[in-house]
């Protein structure tokens, strides 16, 4: 009920805010296809409402769980929507290469660089080679997730006398101290149906950004260095330091591969706690038990970086990309609308949404937890995207996932990295 009235309040508030400079699109229909369903879909519709009102256009959004499959079918058979929202940059890059996406233009590129925090990295994320092998901006990031977070229960920390670690060395020391105290430090679950393994890829990416410079990360993601480079193997082995030690993981190493990522954080909240720490992206809070109050019963800290390495504070993230799959004035107007602070603030107020838009007010976030996460995004010195999303689908959403499952169930980092490298080399 509260959410409903909030929705109404927000759409009322921001309705008249959009000026008269919007083109008159009455009688036109803008079709959008995307992966937002359930509550996300409701929130997205609230974002679209003022746009539809200002332009007079009919905005027709269709959300689907199988978006990734469906957009391929729709674009290849000529019934593409005007705008598509890609959850994976890799898929957008493939379609851009086939000429199925329309470039967003230099103006949007400059806008992104100036108005998004760490703007260049957002431009890079949305730029792909077109059919003519020229790199252009195709994707506009809207709605981001923050990945470099460790979730914990402040009360349990206080009861046990643990402090939030500031450096990676501290985090490792804390892990060992919890084991020495007879507790279990981590809850790690990498199960996710057909996508089992992805939470472990986030671990490895986050660890690589802490072990090596962002350049190494970029070279790894773009396959300029092989997957079984010793530095990558070292990152996988560091993940093994956490995950392949029965004393450090709730349920032991065997539970890593068999626990679903959505159920994994439950261990933080059992009595007594099964674990103290959980590494997962910002969205995981929607999987916490219903009575957990964010900021009070559960909180997060930044997955710290090594004090001994001068690598700054790298932040790993992901996001959804808006791309034009069927060009029309309405589609262009929609992308322009996404540049307004209102388009961000409406969803910020509804929760479950983070943005690097510098013009959007942090006050719009409904709670401190989200506000702090938003702050991390705005302050990021090094921002890198989920590497597995950037790699070719057969690796990033294939052999990398399965490789991490193999690693969790006993194979060595070296072996796993080599087999992933072979699968990557075998790609045309």
């Amino acid at each position: 009920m509260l959410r409903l009235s909030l929705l109404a309040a927000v759409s009322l508030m921001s309705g008249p805010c959009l000026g008269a400079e919007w083109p008159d699109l009455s009688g036109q229909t803008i079709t959008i296809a995307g992966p937002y369903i359930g509550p996300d879909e409701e929130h997205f519709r609230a974002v679209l409402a003022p746009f539809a009102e200002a332009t007079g256009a009919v905005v027709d959004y269709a959300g689907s769980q199988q978006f990734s499959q469906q957009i391929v079918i729709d674009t290849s058979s000529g019934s593409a929507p005007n705008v598509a929202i890609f959850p994976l940059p890799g898929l957008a890059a493939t379609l851009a290469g086939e000429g199925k996406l329309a470039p967003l233009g230099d103006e949007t590129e400059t806008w992104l660089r100036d108005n998004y925090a760490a703007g260049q990295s957002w431009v890079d994320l949305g730029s792909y080679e077109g059919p003519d092998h020229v790199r252009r901006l195709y994707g506009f990031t809207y709605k981001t997730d923050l990945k470099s977070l460790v979730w914990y229960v402040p009360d349990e920390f206080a009861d046990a006398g643990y402090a939030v670690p500031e450096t990676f060395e501290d985090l490792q020391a804390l892990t060992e101290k919890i084991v020495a105290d007879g507790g279990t430090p981590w809850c790690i679950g990498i199960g996710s149906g057909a996508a089992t393994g992805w939470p472990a890829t986030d671990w490895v990416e986050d660890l690589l950004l802490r072990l090596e410079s962002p350049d190494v990360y970029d070279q790894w993601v773009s396959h300029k260095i092989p997957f079984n480079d010793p530095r990558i193997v070292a990152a996988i082995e560091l993940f093994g330091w956490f995950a392949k030690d029965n004393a450090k993981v709730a349920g032991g190493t065997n539970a890593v591969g068999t626990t679903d990522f959505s159920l994994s954080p439950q261990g933080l909240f059992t009595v007594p706690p099964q674990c103290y720490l959980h590494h997962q992206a910002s969205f995981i809070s929607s999987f916490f038990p219903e009575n957990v109050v964010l900021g009070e019963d559960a909180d997060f800290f930044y997955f710290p970086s090594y004090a001994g390495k001068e690598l700054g504070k790298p932040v790993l993230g992901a996001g959804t990309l808006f791309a034009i799959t069927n060009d029309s004035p309405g589609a262009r107007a929609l992308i322009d609308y996404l540049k307004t602070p209102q388009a961000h603030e409406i969803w910020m107020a509804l929760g479950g949404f983070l943005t690097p838009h510098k013009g959007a007010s942090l006050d719009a976030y409904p709670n401190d937890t989200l506000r702090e996460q938003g702050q991390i995004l705005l302050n990021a010195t090094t921002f890198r995207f989920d590497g597995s999303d950037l790699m070719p689908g057969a690796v990033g959403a294939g052999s990398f996932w399965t490789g991490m499952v193999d690693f969790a169930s006993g194979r060595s980092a070296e072996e796993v990295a080599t087999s992933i490298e072979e699968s990557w080399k075998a790609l045309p």
Partner: protein
Amino acid sequence: MTAVVQQVGTTVARVRTGWRTKAKPGQLLTHLSLLILVLIWTAPTAGLLISSFRSKDQLAVSGWWTALAVAVTQEGTRLPTADSSIAETGLFVIRGRLPGTDMGTKIRSYGLNARDLTAAAPGESLSMQDGGSITVEADGSFEWSADRPFTHTRGPRLFYVVERSPRFTIDNYIEVLTTSGLGRSFINSFAVTIPATFIPILVAAFAAYALAWMRFPFRNLIVVTVIGLLVVPLQMSLIPLLSLYNDIAHAFGAADGKTYLGVWLAHTAFGLPLAIYLLRNYMLGLPREIMEAARIDGASHFQIFTKIVLPLSFPALASFLIFQFLWVWNDLLVAMVFLGNQETKLVLTGKLASLLGTRGNNWEVLTAGAFVTIVVPLTVFFALQRYFVRGLLAGSVK
């Protein structure tokens, strides 16, 4: 179960003494293995049904097979802040009830630290860090009293071991049934399913009669081609077929080719090979004499088909009707590709999938959703099931 085992035992004994009774061990064994098979087959559905009556938090911590057991769980809660205290004759008191406790629950013990749950038994008191002392009763009510006013702004935590009799909830069903647009997607599903079931039956019945009883060149070749089409995976044809629809739509000036007619035709095409094969084999098994008698009486092929073959083929028609209805009703892929996901056109399966949430975080509604969608296919099945087995055997037993 023990009775069955005993019976088997006595039967075996009787058999040893020389076939004196009528009970056959083979028959008993068949019944026993059937019973086990039925149990195995119904277990997942039963589990789903039980799960649909459990809350999300229960589903997350324990399996459905524990649903009927008295659950002893360890839980924690945060006590109220100073705001909710009341002054009472020189004492300051905070009263309340631990969450999830009522007549059916019993507190076994409690404590102020997650590692020390047995610090106090119900009725005993513990002194609090924020002042005063707390007493929790077995029924879950607590009283925290102090002689000085409370000042804490953050409630301390309290942990307890609670014994709980089985609990069930209909919240999942309420959530599914009150979703906006559910009624519409029910109607959409019917609008897709009913024509997509009857069109292929109509076409296939004519085709099957022709292939079974009419003489024309290449008849067998056509039959073999139709059977060959059974192995074509429908996924292969999604893109070409949708392109064709779009081309036709554009030629007539329409925006896109995603229409109800398109879905009906797609389902018809995907259903026809099996329908023709099934019905042809059944019709081939009908007695030739009836047909010949009708010919001698001067009946045309059309008259033979409508007056004789069609009524006689009813079991086969009904069994295919069940098949096709179930397949179309449960289909998500074809409807998504040829109809789209717009809210106005979303079918029931699509609606349920969208309830899940972007990251699948509302998966508890799927359990209830499954039983809401199953109602219609079950009705169809029970209405026609007496033809089902007869129809399935059709053509195979000759």
